[in-house]
């Protein structure tokens, strides 16, 4: 069943970005995911994000593990670097890539299976290292690639397509990230691109590990009545905790700020995240407050979305490890590999 390629025509009124690239230049191969998969919407949001942030495709590394989610890097940024790792091992690769070339924009795409089951340990440690990357979990609460078993993020009481109820408690990547000390935590929904693009832009501008959990319904195995991760259920129970606006570095923050409900956070690259309609009992900078607020609301079956927690003060992996300023591949061989004499001298310290 071959599909045609997306016709190579674009709307004549669309303007290129500052690199002279069109939106279509940020696309990838035709998706082979099911028609209507939330992941394809996430892909479209990524395409728009990179286009609008004027990112040069060759300065991006796309990394993934195994699963439907992990196929998605193929569907955007054909001009970027990419590596498809073993199941759940994407965080290790991402750490390595970030260590070798600190100028790369690292994008890790994972799913609830890849990140919360087999790769849970990997996720936790990349997060502790505070690798500067976008870590995107396409969360659909089901093992879609193996035909619909419950995953580690399936909610208690959610029903499978055949009707069984899930009884095990889910792992919530947002609460997990909060408890492990993540410096940027957001949750989006594939069905709300406007919010998602703003979250992705902020995540890519954050210096550190940006965990973005995206509810991305599985249209084939988890979009039925009784599922808590269907399009319909997510729309009915979604709660936008904070409205997120991303303002690029050169642009002035002009929108009016209502005191008490609006909060602006300047990121390391000079861009600003403007959070509005923040509830009174909520503070996205206070980890314990966020934790209890989210827990209370999620307990009621609500699905809070938005930029939920942000800590710009925390140093990233390169800062903590005091690495060299330059990219490793720019270092001359003698510096990168000082020889056996230097190694011997170094090892003497351990005797």
């Amino acid at each position, binding site marked *: 069943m071959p599909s045609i390629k*997306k016709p190579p*025509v674009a709307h004549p009124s669309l303007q290129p970005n500052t690199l002279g690239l069109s939106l279509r230049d940020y696309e990838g191969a035709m998706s082979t995911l099911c*028609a209507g998969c939330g992941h*394809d919407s996430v892909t479209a949001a990524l395409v728009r994000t990179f286009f609008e942030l004027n990112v040069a495709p060759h300065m991006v590394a796309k990394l993934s593990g195994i699963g439907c989610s992990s196929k998605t890097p193929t569907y955007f940024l054909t001009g970027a670097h990419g590596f498809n790792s073993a199941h759940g091992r994407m965080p290790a690769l991402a750490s390595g890539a970030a260590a070798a070339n600190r100028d790369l924009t690292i994008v890790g795409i994972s799913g609830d299976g890849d990140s919360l089951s087999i790769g849970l340990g990997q996720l936790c440690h990349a997060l502790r290292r505070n690798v500067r990357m976008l870590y995107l979990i396409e969360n659909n609460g089901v093992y879609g690639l193996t035909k619909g078993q419950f995953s580690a993020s399936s909610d208690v009481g959610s029903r499978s397509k055949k009707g069984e109820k899930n009884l095990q408690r889910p792992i919530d990547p947002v609460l997990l990230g909060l408890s492990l000390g993540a410096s940027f935590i957001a949750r989006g929904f594939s069905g709300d691109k406007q919010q998602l693009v703003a979250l992705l832009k902020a995540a890519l501008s954050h210096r550190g590990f940006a965990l973005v959990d995206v509810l991305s319904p599985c249209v*084939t195995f988890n979009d039925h009545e009784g599922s808590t991760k269907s*399009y319909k259920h997510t729309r009915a129970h979604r709660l936008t905790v904070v409205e997120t606006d991303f303002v690029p570095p050169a642009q002035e923050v002009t929108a009016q700020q209502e005191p008490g409900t609006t909060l602006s956070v300047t990121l390391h690259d000079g861009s600003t995240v403007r959070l509005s309609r923040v509830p009174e009992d909520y503070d996205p900078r206070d980890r314990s407050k966020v934790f209890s607020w989210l827990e209370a609301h999620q307990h009621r079956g609500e699905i809070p979305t938005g930029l939920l927690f942000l800590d710009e003060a925390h140093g990233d992996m390169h800062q903590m490890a005091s690495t060299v300023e330059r990219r490793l591949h720019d270092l001359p061989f003698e510096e990168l590999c000082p020889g056996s004499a230097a190694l011997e001298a170094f090892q003497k310290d351990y005797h």
Partner: protein
Amino acid sequence: MKPTDVSTPEYYHKVVDCQWACPAHTNVPEYIRLIAQGQYGDAYLLNRQSNVFPGILGRTCDRPCEPACRRTRVDGQPVAICRLKRVASDLREDISHGLPWPAKVKLGKRVACIGAGPASLTVANDLLPLGYDVTIFEKLPRPGGLMRTNIPAFRLPPKVLDEEIEMIVNLGAEMRYGSPVTSLAGLLKDGGFDAVFVGSGAPRGKELELPGRREGAANIHTGIDWLESVAFGHVTSIGERVLIIGVGNTAMDCCRTSRRLGGRDIKVMARKTRKYFKASEWELEDAEEEQVEIVVNHAPKSFVVENGRLRGMEFEKVEWKEDARGRLTSTTVGTVVLPCDDVILAIGQENAFPWIERELMAFDKWDMPVVDKVTFQCTHPGVFFGGDAAFGPLNIIWAVAHGHEAAISIHNHCQGIPVTERPAQGMKTVSQKMGIHQWSYSNDYNPSKRSKMTHVDLRERFKRLDIEVELGFTPEQFTREVERCLNCDVQTAFRDKLCIECDACVDICPLGCLTITPAEESEAALRERLTVPARNTSQALYVSEALPQTSRVMVKDEDLCVHCGLCAERCPTAAWEMEKFDLLLPYAGAVTGCQKP
């Protein structure tokens, strides 16, 4: 903005830009697909249903479809619709089985058609199979009207013309050649006709009354009369230096004909600049290819006649200024005399009805009969007009369209039904889905550029008057050209109740035609809110009912949709479906759908 109503043909018809623009509403995408499948005869018959003269029009049509073609907006060049029609005509197999057949039972009603041009022939084509007796009066010895007299043989071979007229005459028309009608009152009184159709064209070339006109008359010709004389072999030569006055399509035929009759230095004289020329761009190009010079900003002043012989023409050189409202004003900057042997006047033509008694019907202030735009009936019941005779000079395809409508009126009139009671257009939509990624039309976008028509070598073509200049498309050319068609009749049909708002269609659409957005009161505001703002207001927006999950609406901007079907391919619930739209056009006595014959 209210949800779009797609239950009547209007909305979908408008999406098919070519069919909407065609006065006869030819089902262009369907016949292009038939050509693609090698079914040339079927493509021919489908054309014939609506435009009656595919072979003739495939060479000479003014093609209103092409400027309207969506492909122009996508990649700058329309599909070569007109010349594909010629492909269907040239390559058709025996199609006699698909032609209308002579009536077995006669109705006993007699209809007179005045003039054997495209309008009258269309009326005859529609009425003869129903059992009417149709008599066609023609002043010339052969049928065809301006198709024979005004279109030179190097553009339209007489064989093509004869074949297509014969198809109609063979239905049993009584042809009265060499029989000009000299009195309509007489015909009505003594002819014994139940209805009369006037399709006598606009037979009078406009005159240019300037000093020297009478003295130089022997070498000053009226374009359409001169072309007619050439067509009938009465004129076989012209001087070496020829000036053509006017830049309409008749002027183009005059200059190119002159080129073949001995003209060496031929100038087409225009008062204004190219932007204001009446001739179609492609006819201008063809004339220029034949080394005809087109001279702009020259206004005729007088004919220069010496010793009773035309020596040249004097022109005023003018400059034009356009004001903010687009109005032109001219200033004369000098005069010039261009020597010449002959002048041909091609500055337009007009109607002339010296044979219609004015007391029979109302005439307007321009001395044109008052004709109803829908029924084509004048103020005398039972007398109908069509073609150039109705509203002044148009072109063949309009004459055909008028003929179909007039035939409906004549049928009504003869059956005692009010002529204002018009049969409605119908529609049929059929899903094109064949499999998960399979459609019964070629949905892949073909990036090829428009095929260029090849012409007979310049040295060859002037050897005889009737060497057809255009060679027609080669198989390589037309198999590529048919794939350029965007299949605009394969409509994106939307069922709002099925939509789960997953955004798959919005994300995949290559041209950003789709948006899911909160409903908006005004269309103008909605147009600005779309994925890509819809600024071409001549193209419609489709707006759905409120969607089930969020009560937002699905909006489609029709402007640049390439009908690739990816929205329907990526739709998990088949809320989007690709459906082929067939416009069912009413004809006299029957609703004949534009279906595959």
